[in-house]
């Protein structure tokens, strides 16, 4: 007992303590921040000892921005200026159906040529979901800073079923909030990490994640510290909010009022009342309340009630929608429900009794619930942040995640050619080759889409761009190679090149829904104009940290594999290190960046050789278990390196 407080004090007052990495669950309804303290993940609490920060942002008349509980208090009075459940609007276009659902907001139609994103009118201002989310993240960062003083990088969680635009928007929000985003992590994988490390148990698990606004189901296998996601599915517009809406519509019915005739504040009041009724029905069989206003069915203040059985009926269609996704994910994973070793519940909406019993029935076993379903994601994110920052002790832990929805390109006839199918393990890369449809075609129009449908028009449009400058050729002669790369955050980049002429454009992809880099950069500058920090000082501090990390890591690599160095290479690398160290002690951020680039160039060949050695060692390690086969393998490798295989053929270009 006497030890704990003193180590706590040491942590707080040690001026040399490294910045602490944090994990953030940026939820639809509530958000949390957590970090690893004495090898255990723990949530950061506010002055009222509450970990959950309502994901509500209020824009005041005097330009003040309020986040969390205090914003929630203003929601009923100022519904238009108070954005609730902003996550539902992330990465969506200004004309998305989501903007037409029951809700109190005033939307602004984007101007011609402006990025096609949702825009809320809040008083005099117009804000995008990325900016609103950044306010939530900034408030979480400050909360963490109060406790930790110095915050390092952050892992931010996203629903597994988020598409590329939604992920990009989340990462932009992190940047805008002044966070170094170490990784976007899928929420179910984060939850599994929190459970897995807790239980140290191998097996097959399903994670059923019903949050405020999103539903995910993920099937994963945990084996010797490797969390391999086998399949994921879901609905990025289905969640506890929909239960609130169903209850709100029931309340309107009970009062005899039309929801469509209600004012924005009445809608807000009813939605809040619905949420309280939902919470009440977790423990009670009936919840009584007073009619929020008068109508043909009830006077204002008249006693009304909703029973659990009625609520169960209202929730049933929503649960049925989750069922199809669960069966699909199990099938994609090639598993039967009875093969699962456990079902993990995530998300506040899984507290609803009807959800629990439905999950138990569908998977044939009682779900695990020993970690708070509202905290488990943030706890997992904190563990991952610690691992990425090199501060973790569990070195053999690895998360292998997947792409939730297939990625492809529109080809002739509006049909999608799938390049990376859903449930492909990330990071991933794949190429496809195409040809011209018409004689003398000098440009390729490339339309990148995400989704499972056959036609591009039915999938989500991610980006469009044109590869120009191809000399006129007969149809079918040009050979366009398109490369898709998905990184460990699940973010896509696309590269196109015409093979015969070598025309290659590192095309700047203009996202169909979302903000381009310049816009985000401008927002960042605007945010800093508000006097939060000195941009130059912050920039210098950031590049110095990055530079020191690169120097340390390079020295480590040199010491680890000196035999891989070519003659003169060590001297070149060491001189680049010395230059960089010189720049670090100066005060010119740009110079530090240049010297990082120089060191990067000097180490390129060495880095490649180190990776090849890592591959050879991993294969060798495996081969020890199967000695006989390994002899055959080694022969194959020599022959195979001589020539790389041909590209896949051009698909018929209709």
């Amino acid at each position: 007992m006497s030890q704990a407080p003193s180590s706590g004090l040491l942590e707080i007052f040690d001026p040399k303590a490294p910045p602490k990495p944090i994990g953030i669950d940026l939820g639809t309804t509530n958000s949390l921040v957590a970090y690893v303290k004495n090898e255990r993940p723990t949530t950061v609490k506010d002055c009222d000892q509450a970990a959950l920060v309502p994901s509500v942002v209020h824009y005041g008349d005097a330009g003040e921005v309020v986040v969390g509980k205090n914003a929630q208090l203003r929601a009923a009075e100022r519904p238009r200026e108070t954005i609730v459940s902003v996550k539902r609007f992330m990465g969506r276009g200004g004309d998305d159906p989501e903007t037409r659902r029951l809700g109190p907001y005033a939307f602004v139609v984007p101007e011609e040529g402006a990025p096609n994103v949702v825009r809320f009118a809040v008083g005099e201002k117009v804000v995008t979901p990325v900016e609103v989310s950044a306010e939530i993240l900034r408030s979480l960062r400050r909360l963490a800073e109060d406790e930790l003083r110095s915050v390092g990088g952050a892992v931010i969680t996203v629903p597994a079923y988020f598409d590329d635009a939604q992920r990009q928007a989340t990462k932009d929000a992190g940047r805008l909030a002044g966070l170094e985003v170490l990784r976007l992590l899928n929420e179910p994988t984060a939850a599994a990490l929190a459970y897995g490390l807790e239980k140290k148990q191998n097996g097959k698990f399903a994670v059923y994640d019903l949050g405020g606004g999103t539903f995910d189901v993920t099937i994963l296998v945990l084996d010797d510290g490797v969390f391999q996601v086998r399949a994921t599915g879901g609905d990025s517009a289905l969640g506890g909010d929909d239960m609130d809406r169903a209850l709100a519509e029931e309340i309107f019915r009970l009062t005899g009022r039309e929801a469509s005739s209600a004012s924005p504040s009445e809608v807000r009041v009813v939605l809040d009342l619905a949420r309280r009724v939902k919470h009440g029905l977790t423990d009670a069989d009936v919840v009584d309340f007073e009619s929020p206003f008068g109508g043909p069915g009830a006077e204002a203040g008249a006693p009304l009630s909703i029973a659990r059985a009625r609520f169960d009926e209202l929730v049933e269609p929503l649960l049925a929608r989750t069922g199809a996704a669960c069966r699909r994910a199990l099938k994609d994973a090639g598993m039967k429900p009875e093969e699962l070793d456990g079902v993990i519940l995530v998300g506040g909406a899984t507290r609803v009794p009807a959800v629990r019993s439905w999950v138990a029935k569908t998977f044939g076993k009682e779900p695990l619930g020993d970690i708070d379903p509202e905290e488990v994601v943030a706890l997992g994110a904190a563990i991952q942040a610690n691992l990425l920052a090199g501060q973790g002790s569990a070195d053999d832990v690895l998360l292998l995640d997947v792409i939730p929805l297939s990625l492809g390109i529109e080809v002739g006839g509006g049909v999608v050619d799938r390049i990376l199918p859903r449930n492909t393990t990330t990071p991933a890369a794949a190429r496809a080759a195409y040809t011209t449809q018409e004689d003398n075609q000098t440009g390729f129009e490339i339309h990148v889409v995400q989704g499972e449908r056959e036609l591009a028009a039915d999938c989500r449009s991610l980006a469009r761009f044109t590869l120009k400058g191809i000399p006129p050729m007969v149809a079918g002669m040009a050979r366009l190679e398109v490369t898709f790369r998905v990184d460990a955050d699940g973010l896509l980049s696309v590269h196109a090149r015409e093979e015969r002429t070598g025309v290659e454009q590192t095309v700047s992809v203009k996202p169909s829904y979302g903000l381009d880099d310049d816009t985000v950069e401008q927002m960042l500058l605007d945010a800093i104009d508000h006097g939060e920090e000195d941009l130059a000082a912050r920039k210098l501090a950031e590049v110095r940290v990055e530079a020191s990390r690169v120097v340390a890591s390079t020295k480590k690599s040199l010491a680890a594999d000196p035999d891989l160095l070519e003659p003169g290479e060590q001297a070149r690398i060491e001189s680049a290190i010395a230059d960089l160290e010189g720049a670090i002690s100066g005060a010119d951020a740009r110079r530090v960046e240049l010297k990082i680039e120089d060191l990067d160039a000097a180490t390129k060949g060495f880095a490649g050789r180190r990776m090849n050695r890592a591959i050879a060692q991993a294969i060798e390690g495996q081969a020890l278990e199967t000695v006989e086969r390994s002899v055959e393998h080694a022969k194959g490798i020599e022959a195979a390196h001589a020539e790389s295989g041909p590209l896949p053929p051009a698909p018929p270009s209709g």
Partner: protein
Amino acid sequence: MDPFAMLGAPRRFDLDLSALEKTHRELSRALHPDKFAQAGASERRAALEKAASVNEAWRVLRDPIRRAEALFQAEGLAVGETNEPKASPAFLMEVMEEREALADARAARDLAKVKALGAGVSARAKAVESRLTAGFAGGSPSRDELAALLPLLGELRFYRRFLDEVEAIEEEAEERALAGARGVSP
């Protein structure tokens, strides 16, 4: 990229997939970007690229059709429907009959018949896989042997599509049964 070389696997059709899965996992442990979060840009890039290649190799090798395609490609043959010989009229005829039988069984909601057709096709797919196994068992096949094996790819693709359809019909029936149990008309 040669997926066999990438995962250190022998160039044959019948691979020990559980051993390969382990190799993939060990390679991921060594190369995953998470392990290089603190490294310099050149190492991070090299690791990302290799990790993606390793994942791609595993994705190719665990899928029988793509594995077979990779074997032909490694022997210098182009694959894909435009590069392969056209299927024989006899095979096409057979295929049409099978498809019709499946469509009829679906229309009649005869799930037992659907399953039986699926079992028949999957047995034939297995037989084709055995021929591929034998064909690639003794190192590089000769040109003639390769030419004789190449049409098997088209057959495998057909069987895959057929079995996907069988699954879709089974799923449809399952959803219908569930909707019925909830008292909702489909």
